């Protein structure tokens, strides 16, 4: 009996390994052996076009990677978006270290995006001013997701508390907001931001596209985060509320000092998961014409010279997204086990 199962397992392994080996071989042939890595100076993409179907054209990434990663930012000023990227990465790294989970980390989440915006905008200390239409690539992706997430937390907590409130009017309003924003595709709100926003504000008030998209993200992320916070609040045992009440604490002190801190600890992994989800979803701004990481990649292959090399460009961008999201998701996984171990007695 046992040996039969082993034999079946070995056969399955052999079959899968053979298929995998063949596909891997074909992929290597395409992606490495017959690939063009860089074009000789002055040569157009015709060299790549000649070997269409046989080999990959990584030359498109080689030639355009600064545009993909940093957008249409003025070339000689590109140290600024690059520095902004580093600041964001440092922020994420600091947030991952548990010794840094102190109140000042909150300040960092406000401070770093602010500094990044100042860096990108310029117009101070002799830095040339760069309009937000020229911002793009990875810094824009980082900016949209970080600000969107940080700014959505306060309204999310409010909505979650509102949904659990005993006051019917507050509860109904919170539920309506949360369900409306979660029930409709995110892209609808981006279209609203791009096309409808001018109708909502007094005429002559121009608001940059980036800022409008940012506001749309904050509004939507708040609705999704509210559900995460609600789950966290629900996980705090009722005894905690009762104990706080019996100590004479009223609603707000009990909520802010007793319940929320405990809920926060429980919901950290879910918070990080939401962050990854929206980090990926910021790519939707490519549809309304912003040049975030994906938008810039899309713009590269509109260039007549590089039309038809989407596969290579998208594989490169996918690798960038994957590196970031995979690292963060492995971290949440580690955090889940570590926090669960801490909660046990």
């Amino acid at each position, binding site marked *: 009996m046992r040996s039969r199962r082993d034999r079946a397992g070995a056969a399955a392994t052999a079959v899968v390994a053979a298929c995998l080996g063949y596909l891997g071989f074909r992929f290597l042939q395409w992606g490495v052996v017959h690939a063009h890595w860089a074009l000789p100076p002055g040569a157009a993409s015709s060299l790549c076009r000649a070997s269409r179907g046989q080999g990959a054209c990584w030359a498109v990434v080689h030639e355009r990677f600064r545009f993909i990663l940093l957008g249409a930012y003025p070339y000689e000023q590109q140290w600024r978006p690059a520095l902004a990227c580093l600041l964001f990465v440092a922020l994420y790294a600091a947030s991952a270290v548990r010794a840094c989970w102190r109140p000042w980390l909150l300040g960092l989440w406000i401070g770093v995006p602010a500094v990044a915006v100042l860096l990108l905008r310029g117009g101070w200390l002799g830095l040339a001013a760069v309009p937000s239409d020229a911002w793009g690539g990875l810094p824009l992706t980082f900016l949209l997701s970080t600000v969107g997430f940080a700014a959505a937390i306060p309204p999310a907590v409010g909505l979650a508390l509102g949904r659990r409130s005993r*006051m019917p009017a507050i509860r109904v*309003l919170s539920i309506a907001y949360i369900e409306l924003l979660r*029930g409709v595709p995110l*892209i609808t709100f981006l279209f609203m931001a791009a*096309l409808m926003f001018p109708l909502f504000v007094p*005429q002559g008030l121009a608001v940059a596209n980036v800022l409008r998209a940012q506001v749309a993200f904050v509004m939507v992320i708040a609705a999704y985060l509210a559900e995460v916070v609600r789950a966290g609040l629900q996980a705090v045992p009722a005894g905690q509320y009762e104990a706080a009440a019996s100590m004479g604490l009223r609603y707000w002190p009990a909520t802010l000092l007793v319940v929320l801190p405990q809920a926060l600890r429980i919901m950290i992994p879910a918070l990080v998961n939401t962050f990854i989800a929206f980090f990926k979803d910021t790519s939707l701004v490519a549809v309304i014409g912003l040049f975030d990481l994906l938008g810039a990649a899309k713009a590269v292959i509109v260039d007549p010279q590089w039309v038809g090399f*989407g596969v290579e460009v998208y594989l490169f*961008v996918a690798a960038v*997204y994957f590196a970031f999201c995979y690292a963060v998701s492995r971290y949440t996984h580690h955090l889940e086990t570590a926090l669960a171990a801490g909660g046990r007695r």
Partner: protein
Amino acid sequence: MRALAWQAGAVALVLALLVVLVVQTAANLRLRGLASGFGFLGRATGFEISASPLAYSPRDSYARALAVGLLNTVRVALLAIVLATALGLVLGIARLSRVRIVATLARAYVEVVRNTPLLLQLLFWYSLSQALPGPRDALRPLPGVFLCIRGLHLPGLAWHGGTRWLVAAAGALAIVVGLLRGISRRQRDRAGRALPTARLAAGAAAVLLVGAIAAGHPAVTLDRPALMRFGFEGGMSLTPEFAALLIGLSTNTAAFIGEIVRGGILAVDRGQTEAAAALGMSRARVLRLVVLPQALRVALPPTTTQYLNLTKNSSLAVAIGYPDLMSIADTTLNQTGQAVEVIALVMTVYLALSLVIALLMSAAEP
């Protein structure tokens, strides 16, 4: 008293916000000389739709164009839900396979899909379809199947017979099913084991169909795609946009469903597997008859969420040019300028779709 004040304050604030918004928007619309109201729905669109399940021409109304978009959304979402569920089930089981390489492969798939944006995946599939050869050099993965830059062409069934033969076939099938059920019930009472009625009925239907084709019956023929002057004609065809969207949505959601299925299987008590094994059941039977029914019960609610996500995500069709509801609404919006009405309409429809799916799934819950 305090509670009342809080609530009154909140309601007043929301109302005030809405009033300001409405007044401001109305003023802006007047200033720009834009019309308001849903009158535009009756006007002719003047644009083509590349794939339409309804008869449609540019002379038709915006209402009809939007209906075409809605049907396209429903079509791609339904198909993708079916494919994603099937693939997700396989992935969830493969993740727990004892064969190391199968489990690793499934895990790698799930990680890659879950850690890259869906929009990127859709654009990737679409550019892959655009890198295919032209119709003359179409790839032929299977006889009768053609894959080229214009899309995927498959043999299809063509129906010429009208309703007479359809009724006759349905009647014959009904009689066969009725007989089978009778035999099955007697068999169950006598031997304790029922016949696999559903499978036998499906088999009978297949025999009927293949028989009709093989006998050269004029009512039903196999329609193969053939290369004509302007590309392939005949058979079934999927446009590259539809294929990219379908593949992207189903492979993406499958990764999420796979993780749900895996969680569901792990949630089934080990004792269940051991008890079934002690009864002498094979591993496949244990999985099919004991573990999966219990696992799926756990997996159903989160799967509903995935179906809802998939339906909402189908709106990303707008990025690759498949004429779903969102793309047609976008075009309508750009042509008429009536952003408020169009967006309100789209929101209502997506909310209604979400509601329908949620209701259907809760009806399916045991």
